[in-house]
């Protein structure tokens, strides 16, 4: 991206502008352009600063983020209008107070993002470079020990590399949690060349975007992990399968591959060794099921992405029938860390069964939305309340959904659960790729279950009957309940269907599809009953079962709901209690979401 020459003048400052997707949507590219033009002008040249566009810093909520080095200053929600003030402050050696991060609870200002609650509890391994480097400049990666792990690995024997990965206890970050070292080992022992290495970047779980962030913000770490694996198992070619929606990831990965080739990290005789290996980017076609490894392989081969049963694992017969190692983006990003710093250091982090860190995308009804990386074993409470800053607008925490559509909802009484692969499975959910979607009392759990089942019904490839028909039937029942036509017998039927779909589906998509239904039935059965028996949606989401009204005692007549209502359903004089016309109300919830006095109620 940034093609401007960067001077390595010791006196000069570096201004890092976050150009991750979140910040871009908030206008960071304009900020960057404006900074560059101002710095190039007469007023700017005195400042002696250069600029860099970086990947996602995680705190997308406060974007666009601008960081200044070596002063370690972080500015939040920067607009083009703020740019002259920033440049002037650099000249004067002052701070632009209004742009500093302000803690929502303590109201305290922080000079650097490193001091904030959001970052303090994090431990960055997979995300170690993101936000600090220009992803399009290989020199930035090399400056931060880039490709050192590869050099070290090339000096080791393939078996030693595999043993190191085994000893680290690294487990697949894509959802399955299979030990990475064992996967490599079982591929290496199959005597059948050529072998292939695949990076699964088909991040389909709605609500998870860590893979996107890594591929966009630090593409070389993915390449380095794959090259180390190629050395370990003797692979000749690698493929990175990326969702086509991720435009920037495709661009940055291709750029990284070209640079790595030019620098001798890809191609023939890598770094003077006997390793010949190259990588190609394959763009996906927008099918969720392609995140399943056998479906992904079918897709690379040029077929519809339908999974097959895994009597024989891809490590024995994978891409074009050859032995293949396939790992997720975040897994690859951890490999260079393990080799460079040693397995022992990595294994010292985390819990007994899950080593290292995990990146979570903390989204939904939480104050600090964004990407967080914490040691395995951190509790949900720490993640959601200490790092995430709790629930906005003083609402009540209801549940957190983990593991994407295959995961489940975890209720408030399990907030002290230490998160790792095994504890989440025991709670009826799963790690998945690491989406944490926080829900408050304005989220209807029946509707959430319906949402996931609807998603999976659309994404089921249709190959096997239990998944194709079972999920459609579950969707029909859940829709019925959310529309107010459910019966008590429907709940038993849902459980029966779930058992069949779990037992009889061909691939993990079907086998885990009932999880959202079963976990909400287990923890939030009362909400199902409210829909069925009382014909009301306690969260005020299901339109057929919701009626909003204004509590005249609490309403101050501020008029905010009247202004926000897109249907003109709210009427009332200033400073007098307002009224909602139920006939006009479209139940969009703008009034209840915006009322500062909790005066809007659900009947």
């Amino acid at each position, binding site marked *: 991206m940034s093609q401007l020459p960067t001077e390595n003048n010791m006196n000069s400052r570096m201004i890092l502008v976050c150009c991750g*997707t*979140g910040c*871009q*949507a*908030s206008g960071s590219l304009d900020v960057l352009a404006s900074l560059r033009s101002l710095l190039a002008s007469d007023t700017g040249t005195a400042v002696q600063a250069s600029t860099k566009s970086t990947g996602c810093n995680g705190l*997308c*909520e406060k974007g666009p983020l601008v960081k200044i080095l070596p002063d370690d200053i972080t500015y939040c929600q920067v607009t083009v209008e703020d740019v002259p003030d920033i440049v002037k402050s650099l000249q004067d050696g002052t701070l632009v107070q209004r742009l500093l991060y302000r803690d929502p609870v303590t109201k305290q200002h922080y000079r650097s993002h490193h001091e904030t609650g959001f970052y303090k509890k994090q431990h960055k391994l997979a995300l170690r470079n993101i936000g600090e480097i220009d992803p399009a400049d290989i020199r930035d990666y090399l400056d931060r020990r880039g490709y050192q792990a590869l050099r070290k690995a090339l000096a080791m024997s393939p078996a030693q590399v595999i043993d190191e990965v085994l000893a680290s206890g690294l487990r697949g970050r894509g959802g399955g949690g299979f030990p990475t070292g064992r996967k490599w080992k079982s591929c290496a022992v199959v005597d059948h060349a050529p072998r292939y290495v695949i990076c699964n970047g088909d*991040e*389909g779980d*709605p*609500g*998870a*975007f860590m893979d*996107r962030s890594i591929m966009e913000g630090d593409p070389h770490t993915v390449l380095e992990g794959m090259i180390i694996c190629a050395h370990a198992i003797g692979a000749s070619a690698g493929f990175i399968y990326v969702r086509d*929606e991720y*435009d920037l990831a495709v661009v940055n990965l291709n750029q990284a591959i070209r640079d790595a080739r030019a620098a001798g990290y890809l191609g023939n005789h890598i770094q003077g060794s006997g390793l010949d290996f190259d990588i190609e980017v*394959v*763009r*996906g*076609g*927008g*099918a*969720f099921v392609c995140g399943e490894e056998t479906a992904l392989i079918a*897709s690379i*081969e*040029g*077929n*519809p*992405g339908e999974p097959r049963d895994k009597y024989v694992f891809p490590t024995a017969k994978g891409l074009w029938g050859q032995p293949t190692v396939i790992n997720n983006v975040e897994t690859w990003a951890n490999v260079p860390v393990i080799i460079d710093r040693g397995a022992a250091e990595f294994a010292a982090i985390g819990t007994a069964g899950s080593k290292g860190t995990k990146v979570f*995308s903390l*989204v*939904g*009804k939480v104050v600090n*939305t*964004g*990407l967080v990386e914490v040691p395995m074993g951190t509790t949900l409470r720490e993640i959601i309340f200490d790092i995430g800053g709790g629930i906005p607008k003083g609402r009540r925490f209801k549940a957190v*959904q983990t593991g*994407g559509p295959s995961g489940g909802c975890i209720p408030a009484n399990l907030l002290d659960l230490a998160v790792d692969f095994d504890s989440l499975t025991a709670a009826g959910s799963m790690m998945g790729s690491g*989406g944490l*979607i926080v*829900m408050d009392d304005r*989220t209807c759990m029946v509707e*959430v279950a319906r*949402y*996931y089942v609807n*998603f999976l019904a*659309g*994404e089921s490839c249709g190959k096997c009957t239990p998944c194709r028909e079972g999920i459609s039937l579950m969707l029909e029942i859940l829709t019925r309940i959310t529309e107010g036509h459910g019966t008590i017998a429907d709940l038993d039927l849902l459980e029966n269907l779930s058992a069949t779909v779990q037992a009889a589906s061909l691939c993990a998509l079907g086998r885990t599809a009932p999880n959202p239904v079963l976990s909400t039935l287990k923890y939030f059965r009362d909400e199902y009953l409210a829909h069925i028996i009382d014909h009301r949606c306690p969260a005020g989401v299901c339109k057929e079962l919701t009626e909003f009204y204004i509590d005249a005692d609490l309403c101050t007549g501020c008029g905010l709901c009247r202004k*926000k209502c*897109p*249907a*003109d*359903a709210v009427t009332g004089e200033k400073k007098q209690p307002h009224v909602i016309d139920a*006939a*006009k109300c*479209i139940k*969009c*919830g*703008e009034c209840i*979401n915006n009322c500062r006095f909790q005066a809007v109620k659900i009947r």
Partner: protein
Amino acid sequence: MMNIRQALKLFLQACCARRVPDSGACPAGGESGHTYACTKGDGAEMAVDPQQAAVQHSMERIVWQYPPEQRYILAIMQDLQKEFNYLPREALSLTADHVQVPLGKVYSMATFYKAFSLTPRGRINFKACDGTACHIKGSLVIIDELHKCLGIKPGETTADGEFSLETVNCLGACAIAPVLVANHKVHAKVTATAVREIIKTYGGRVDEPVAN
């Protein structure tokens, strides 16, 4: 085994070719691509229509830049989708011919993967994200509002060809949910009220709200 496969392939190819009665009149490489034009019996004249020739040319440029291997079908179709905003039937035939698979194979992929459309999309293509984070922050309200203002449901295009609407499962911009993308421009934290403003900025007309 090999022989049966090859025979089947030749048979299917022959079937494809037979659907063009006077393929000889069409320019090389575009036989099945001119099915409609040629069957009108005036193939030669239709083929020289400069606009159509330009379309044909850009299709060929996209398809032929890839090696003739099955594994490039997805990439070819993605480039075609980007260029034309949908997958024209002629382009699918051209792809099938190029990588030497039956047209049905290409069609099965075009319909399996969500990124592709077999009908033209509008000048402004709205992608309303309905990923989980957007969903619980009210994406359905946005989709409803778009439906109300434009009169189209997800998957449809307005009669004047101006706007299309589709829902997508997560664009990976969950921290700024709910998200609405108009062509490539990402609109963050969208509300029902904001939808009307967005439609207006793209030249759409928004009527005042009518209850239910």
